[in-house]
């Protein structure tokens, strides 16, 4: 299929003849390559004139009520995604409170060291492992997820992160749900991340690292180029 001319594949996508797998493949291609996205956009605009040939129907009075009702309906996964947003103002307030206490920097550092040690020692055996591959198929990171939702991310090469970007780790706890941020690799180094409140990772769960604006994705969904992506497997012990 993929040996067919890209223009032909794009046309079939736009007129609605592409099947689901092909649609996903092309959408992934668009996300990686703005030039492809621009070609798809051009094709959409060409055919878009046909949308304007449909009748303009009267909007039923109930439609807005139905839409607004659906917006109000709780979306479990989306709500959890929002909980996962780091509110910087809260963090700053907490930092001020820290300073306000009599704890010296040394004591705080000691506490952090102890906590870090505890977190590292307490990390159980991974229940899933994913090898993330870059666009060329080369392995760039190893992801080990544990039942307690700690996720060890080991970078397998020094990533060429643009100066104004940071690596952000994502997963899809629910295959059909939105991607959820596991956290940032702000230093560009390997890290253990924790994501409480989600079901334990499962085989075939998707993991991804993208380059996001500093501070992380502004939409809390992946927006940037993909560093690596892979599906988890359950290791055999």
């Amino acid at each position, binding site marked *: 299929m993929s040996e067919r001319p890209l223009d032909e594949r794009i046309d079939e996508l736009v007129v609605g003849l592409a099947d689901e797998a092909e649609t996903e493949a092309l959408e992934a291609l668009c996300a990686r390559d703005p030039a492809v996205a621009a070609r798809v956009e051009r094709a*959409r605009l060409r055919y878009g004139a*046909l949308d304007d040939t449909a009748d303009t129907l009267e909007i039923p009075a109930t439609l807005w009520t139905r839409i607004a009702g659906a*917006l109000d309906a709780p979306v479990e996964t989306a709500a959890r995604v929002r909980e996962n947003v780091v509110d910087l103002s809260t963090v700053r307030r907490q930092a001020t409170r820290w300073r306000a206490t009599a704890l010296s920097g040394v004591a705080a550092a000691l506490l952090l060291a102890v906590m870090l040690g505890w977190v590292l020692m307490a990390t159980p055996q991974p229940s899933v492992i994913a090898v993330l591959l870059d666009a060329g198929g080369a392995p760039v990171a190893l992801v080990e997820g544990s039942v307690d939702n700690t996720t060890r991310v080991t970078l397998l090469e020094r990533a060429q992160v643009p100066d104004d970007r940071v690596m952000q780790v994502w997963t899809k706890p629910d295959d059909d749900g939105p991607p959820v941020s596991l956290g940032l690799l702000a230093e560009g180094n390997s890290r253990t991340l924790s994501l409480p409140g989600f079901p334990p990772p499962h085989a075939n769960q998707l993991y991804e690292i993208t380059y996001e604006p500093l501070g992380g994705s502004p939409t809390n969904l992946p927006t940037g180029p993909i560093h690596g992506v892979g599906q988890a497997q359950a290791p055999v012990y």
Partner: protein
Amino acid sequence: MTVARSCETSQHLTASGPITYLASADADVPCRKGTCDTVTDHASLLQACASGDRSALKTLLDAEGGRMLGVARRMLRRQDLAEDATQESFVLIWRRAGQYDPQRGSARAWIYTILRNRCLTLLRNAGREELLDPAALETASDSATLETAYHRLDLTNDLRQCLETLEPDKRMAILSSYVLGYSHGEIAGRMGAPLGSVKAWVRRGLLKLRECLS
């Protein structure tokens, strides 16, 4: 995983009252009703949606909902399903508004892509035959819908001019996929032709159209 670029700017709402997002000379600046062109500025509305402004979604529904319902009705051919598809599309537009990037394309095309994908998914999942009452299955009414769509295209429109250069049955096959959501299999079924040859034949039509349009 859906990856889309975000829009990094958001609309700032003033405290002095609701703002209607209408196009102006400077499309980035929202303006009050009556002070500028009455063309809806879809991009600003999407940005307002991304920042949580529900009135922007309502404005979008008022401006575009009737046409979207028409597009959905044409593909799904049932008023209740068309309303469902339009409703679901507006919920998706609200949820994904933050992923729309004005740098990457037209806001209106982005909105219609969501709607068309929603309709196609409904068609493919349910199976067209299940969706339809037998009376609507008349091929004749499909042809009439396609003829209407074709003739409503402006004569100066590039797509119209290029469609005109195609043989009528190729033209109708391509129109039936875009306008009615026909799959390759459905086109083959209606024509009584083998699937493989219909695929190749439609591709030749698309190629000719592409060459004409470029």
